[in-house]
């Protein structure tokens, strides 16, 4: 157990380490936000297992590690990078290398009128007022210490702004290439990308975020994204977390929906040693809907944590969250889904489910779907299952000549298909399937224990 004083000093050290590396001349509002966040980071309670939201996810390992925000020049041959890009994927691409925009690797020119897609630094130079309108409007750094850390240490990220009724045909792809290489033994790299997505009235877009560990290395990626969907706006948001298996990943996505807006998310988590993803979704006007589907695989020395908070504050909104997990070896997963239906949120329609397939005895999942309902005319359900591969199914497949490892893999893919099939971009669908199969191969390696 790390004492509270030591935990506090960890955050102070990270603030000090990062303070050297901030962007150049900041506008006043950003300076204020930073100061505010620094104050919050030194005041907010440090997370421990007494906090319900962190009960099953220890941050002690993180607090034992010393990080630096040192600006790392990223040496990577173009060929290696090419391998990390999806073949035949026609996108507007923003590449952030260790959290910083990399212009040569990005292809975000030729945008149609009414669409802004740029790095946060560029937006600070060219559009500080537009940025100021939306920055920090949803994510509350005065409530979460990691959000405060992100705000205090902002260095770069991306900014998407789409004007009224503009429908972007090609998807926007944000690729985070992360590597903690070239860092000294006793210090690891941390990065705090900060992103803003604003879809104005009736705007439509598809956003793909991919987190890629480019080498087996350890680092801390603390990502914060704010998404605003104005009236009738629609966003498809794919998020593929494929960090290095030694990395720390914390992703926090806050979504604010106005009336008749639609959010469709598919979130996949394969990588990381310790990975937590939080979705905070608020319905602020009636007749909005969201659907979020998630898939995670965890094996030895991996913890994956999904936290969802969906707030039905107003009437007539619809939310669907469906998460599935495949656990093997001594892998651990945490799922905490919370749906709040306020007393004015009549005719809310909410469903939340979490299903887990345990391939081994040593795997562990802590799952907690919750409904908190104050309205009296609602349609809500939640459920969770924890199961194993059915021996009858396995026997059936083997009796048809399919070997056991292949049969298991096919059954796991079948279990995951419901989520992966929600990806309607073919190259991404193929990539996700490949990544799942790779992950399942690990599950059938000897020594992963039944």
């Amino acid at each position, binding site marked *: 157990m790390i004492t509270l004083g030591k935990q506090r000093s960890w955050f102070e050290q990270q603030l000090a380490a990062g303070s050297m590396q901030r962007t150049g001349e900041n506008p006043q509002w950003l300076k204020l936000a930073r100061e505010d966040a620094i104050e919050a980071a030194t005041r907010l309670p440090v997370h421990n297992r007494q906090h319900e939201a962190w009960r099953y996810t220890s941050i002690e390992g993180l607090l034992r590690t010393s990080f630096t925000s040192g600006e790392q020049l990223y040496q990577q041959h173009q060929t290696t990078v090419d391998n990390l890009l999806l073949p035949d994927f026609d996108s507007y691409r923003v590449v952030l290398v260790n959290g910083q925009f990399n212009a040569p690797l990005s292809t975000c020119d030729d945008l149609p009128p009414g669409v802004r897609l740029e790095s946060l630094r560029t937006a600070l130079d060219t559009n500080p007022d537009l940025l100021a309108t939306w920055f920090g409007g949803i994510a509350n750094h005065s409530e979460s210490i990691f959000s405060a850390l992100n705000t205090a240490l902002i260095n770069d990220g991306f900014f998407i702004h789409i004007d009224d009724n503009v429908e972007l045909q090609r998807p926007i792809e944000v690729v985070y290439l992360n590597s903690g290489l070239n860092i000294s033994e006793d210090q690891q790299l941390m990065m705090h990308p900060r992103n803003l997505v604003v879809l104005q009235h009736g705007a439509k877009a598809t956003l793909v975020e991919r987190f890629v560990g480019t080498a087996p290395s350890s680092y801390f990626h603390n990502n914060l994204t704010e998404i605003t969907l104005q009236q009738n706006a629609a966003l498809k948001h794919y998020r593929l977390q494929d960090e290095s298996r030694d990395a720390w990943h914390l992703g926090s996505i806050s979504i604010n929906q106005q009336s008749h807006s639609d959010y469709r998310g598919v979130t996949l988590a394969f990588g990381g040693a310790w990975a937590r993803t939080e979705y905070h979704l608020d319905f602020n006007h009636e007749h909005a809907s969201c659907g979020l589907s998630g898939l995670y695989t965890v094996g030895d020395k991996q913890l994956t944590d999904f936290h969802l908070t969906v707030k039905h504050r107003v009437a007539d909104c619809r939310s669907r969250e469906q998460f599935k997990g495949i656990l093997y070896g001594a892998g651990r997963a945490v799922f905490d889904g919370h749906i709040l239906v306020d007393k004015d949120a009549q005719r809310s329609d909410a469903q939340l489910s979490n299903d887990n397939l345990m391939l081994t005895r040593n795997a562990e999942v802590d799952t907690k779907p919750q409904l908190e309902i104050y309205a009296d005319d609602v349609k809500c359900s939640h459920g969770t299952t924890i199961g194993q591969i059915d021996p009858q199914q396995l*026997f059936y497949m083997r009796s048809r000549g399919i*070997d056991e490892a292949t049969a298991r893999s*096919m059954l796991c893919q*079948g*279990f995951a298909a419901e989520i992966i099939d929600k990806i309607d971009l073919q190259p991404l669908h193929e990539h996700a399937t490949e990544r799942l199969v790779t992950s399942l191969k690990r599950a059938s390696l000897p020594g992963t224990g039944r």
Partner: protein
Amino acid sequence: MNQMTPNSMLSIRNLTVDVEDKTILQGLNLEIGKGEVHAIMGPNGSGKSTLSHTLSGRDGYQVTGGEALLNGEDLLSLETEERAHKGVFLAMQYPVELPGVNNMTFMRESLNAVRRARGEEELDAVSFIKMVRAKAAEVKLDPKLLKRDVNSGFSGGEKKRNEILQMALLEPQLAILDETDSGLDIDALRIVADGINALRSPDRSIILITHYQRLLDYIEPDFVHVLSAGRIVQSGDKQLALKLEEQGYAWITGEEAA
């Protein structure tokens, strides 16, 4: 009967099998020649399903004595998938649903696994699709079912036809049909029986496990055996099945009819 002949496909000698510490098969003997169709009948609990599951290698069936030779080779020491590679096929009484596993993918994986084991080349996607469509038409399986998940939401008849389709694809040497007639109406039964009859061949032996003579009106067996208390207690030709239909099993098993 216990002589190994050049014509032998399956030779079961003195087989004893325990399930959950209870002895179910108690010294079963059965000789099946190439190209023959044998019906195995018998009252509930006589060991019919135990026999089919033991032959296909299901977990939980403990062989405590005896042997089963397929083409003179020890069958019981093989893994389930190896038996399939050697040409054993079990059409199940209750075909299992595989949610999320596409029927076409499943059958292609299955066929290619068997072909690989036999040292044959794998079929590419295009040739496979052509082949499976043709065979599906033969067993009157709606081609739409090929695109669905394996057996998921299929009717009883569709599941059985899907089994016969797999049999047609894998071209087994020894097919064991475990109560294939159960749960089928008369039209579905006729379609399934036609499919099985089309697969009769001098190189293929078939074991029909059934409760009812009805199936044998459509698939005429060469031999009929009665299994009781874990043993074959009576063997004969088609006439035996008719007699059983008329008189029940009591005259053979020595028990009161239920």
